[in-house]
């Protein structure tokens, strides 16, 4: 699930400080700047990991808040940083609920398939609402220049985006999957706002079909190659039980290869597609992430993570975030000072607390 507010939208630059009083109205490009550093984030990461293990997972909610705060506050647009305000207790509540749902789902299938399908049905019915609340939670808890983002998507839209379209795409053998993806992104962005200013998502369905067309070709190419390799391995170890232990490893490597082939391409193209077709009031965005750069970053990250038994992970996260964030530019149609707080926000200071009480943040 791609959250539009994750890592991407952002704040002002440390190096190119913009005079906030400048009142010129000509369109101007404001690049997103990311100042996070791997060594620094490693400290946060290791302390988070230690405390999470010591508290048997409970601290993970606080860890998530610190992690998101680190990435948000290091993202600068137009001279100001983003910030994250999630309440760890709300996140913990969401995680406990999520864990119990997962546990109940798995146990019910062990007990009886009928009960399992019943629970699966209930989960499917509840999931769109949970996702909607999760989007709202994330948006309301993200801010820039003291204004909160917001998400006004309704249940009807959530059921369409997260239940109806997935079912339709399954029943059409995924022919409608690109359309589902476009509808999902549209639901996420069209209902989003910054203060009182609305986002608008204009990417056409055809662009999603083009993206998935290329992806399908990549996938076929990759499956032919990795599938061939796996077959070769199977042939080589046929009959030899000692080598049979290599089978799962060969299959795993095949999956990793497929992931490496698809993920960077999809990430880069999707990011560009979404942000190049998103407006915020009169402002718009430009994203020029290159797939081949992300291929290089993803591949070297993976190698380094494996070689360091995972300890490179925080550095990898910083590298990826820097490239993805700095690929985005805000093309402003007027002064950035002109945004105002959203109505809901202005009406009551308790709006935010209410969101924290009723909205659960589910990690998906």
């Amino acid at each position: 699930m791609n959250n539009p507010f994750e890592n991407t939208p952002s704040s002002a630059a440390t190096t190119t400080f913009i005079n906030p009083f400048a009142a010129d109205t000509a369109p101007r490009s404001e690049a997103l700047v990311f100042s996070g550093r791997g060594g620094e984030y490693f400290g946060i990461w290791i302390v988070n990991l230690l405390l999470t293990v010591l508290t048997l997972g409970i601290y993970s909610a606080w860890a998530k808040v610190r992690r998101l705060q680190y990435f948000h506050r290091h993202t600068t647009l137009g001279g100001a940083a983003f910030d994250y305000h999630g309440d760890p207790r709300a996140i913990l509540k969401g995680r406990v609920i999520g864990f119990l749902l997962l546990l109940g789902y798995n146990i019910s299938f062990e007990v009886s398939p009928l009960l399992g399908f019943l629970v699966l049905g209930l989960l499917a019915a509840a999931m769109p609402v949970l996702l909607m609340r999760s989007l709202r939670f994330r948006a309301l808890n993200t801010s820039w220049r003291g204004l909160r983002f917001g998400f006004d998507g309704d249940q009807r839209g959530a059921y369409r985006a997260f239940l109806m379209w997935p079912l339709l795409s399954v029943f059409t053998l995924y022919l409608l999957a690109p359309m589902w993806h476009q509808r999902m992104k549209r639901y996420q962005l069209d209902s989003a706002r910054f203060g009182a200013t609305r986002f608008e998502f204009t990417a056409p369905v055809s662009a999603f079909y083009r993206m998935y067309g290329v992806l399908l070709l990549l996938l076929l190419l990759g499956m032919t190659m990795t599938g061939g390799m796996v077959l070769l391995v199977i042939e080589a170890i046929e009959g030899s039980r000692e080598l049979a232990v290599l089978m799962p490893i060969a299959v795993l490597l095949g999956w990793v290869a497929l992931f490496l082939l698809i993920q960077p391409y999809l990430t880069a193209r999707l990011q560009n597609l979404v942000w190049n077709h998103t407006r915020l009031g009169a402002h718009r965005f430009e994203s020029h992430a290159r797939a081949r750069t992300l291929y290089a970053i993803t591949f070297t990250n993976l190698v380094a993570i494996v070689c360091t038994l995972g300890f490179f992970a925080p550095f990898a996260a910083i590298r990826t975030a820097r490239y993805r964030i700095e690929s985005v530019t805000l093309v402003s149609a007027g002064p950035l000072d002109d945004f105002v707080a959203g109505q809901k926000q202005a009406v009551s200071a308790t709006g935010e607390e209410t969101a924290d009480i009723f909205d659960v943040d589910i990690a998906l």
Partner: protein
Amino acid sequence: MSTSPSEALTVAALYFDGHSARAWPATLSLDGDALLLAAEGLSRRAPLASLRLSEPMGAAPRLITFDDGAHAEVRDHAALARLLGASGQRDRLTVRSAFDLRMVAGALALLVVVLWGAARYGLPWAAEVAAPRVPEAVVTGLSRQTLELIDEHMLAPSTLADAEQSRLRSVLAGRTTLSHALVFRHGGAVGPNAFALPDGTLVVTDELIELAGDDERVMAVLMHELGHVERRHGMRMLLQGSVVALFMTWYAGDVSSVIAMAPTALIQSGYSRDMEREADDYAAAALRAQGRSPALLADMLQRLSESADRGRKDGGGWLDSHPDSAQRIERLRDRP
């Protein structure tokens, strides 16, 4: 430069009122127990106790939030540090530790120790406590799934005559009071083997029966397997494996497919050395109670070990998951 000490403690900031995105260039200074914020056409004074200060995160700005939601963004960290020093403010331990090299190294070392301790002592203990509490329906469901998986990928139907199968079943029924179900399979590449599922299902391969040569040695192996059932070794290994898998998945940042791996994990996870010893002890006690010698099991271990040596390439079999066979044989033979 500065003419007075208080003037030296001025910090540049951007002030945002929380109602619009307008950035007000401002300066911060201390005024007794309060913070003074001054911008063109605006000034406010707030008691230090009413302010929230975000933790330091490298080059990222620190945010000073007022109780009405307005905030000031500070990027001049050196100046802010002097101001904070003058106000006596100190960061929380978790915050400081994230940026201090010694603390990071300490956290890393502590993490390794904690993980090792949890894996070596904490997890086995927790699994032992939790295993008897797993609902019966889950135990049976898991065992059934596991057997299906094994039948599909590793074993073939037994070629043993039905009469012979029922005869062995009734012999076993006379030797134990534990609830169990004895089933027979053709091992093929797996070779001579026997294993127990958590619900008491005992699986024996035709090859093992052939290798044993007589009922007594088959029963000795089955007593060992019943030991695993009685001590709930299967469920304990599964629980331990699940927690490890859960941790690994979380560590790797992906949260799914964990429980789907459970039956696979059950097949792949061999018993620990301690568990084998426990099952051996159980078998020895059971054999003695039946007026037979634990040497029967030792005998079978010997045969299995030789068979494994003979047929390295077409299957190691039972002993692959049963390490230290020489030591175990000796231990069983030493018993009266």
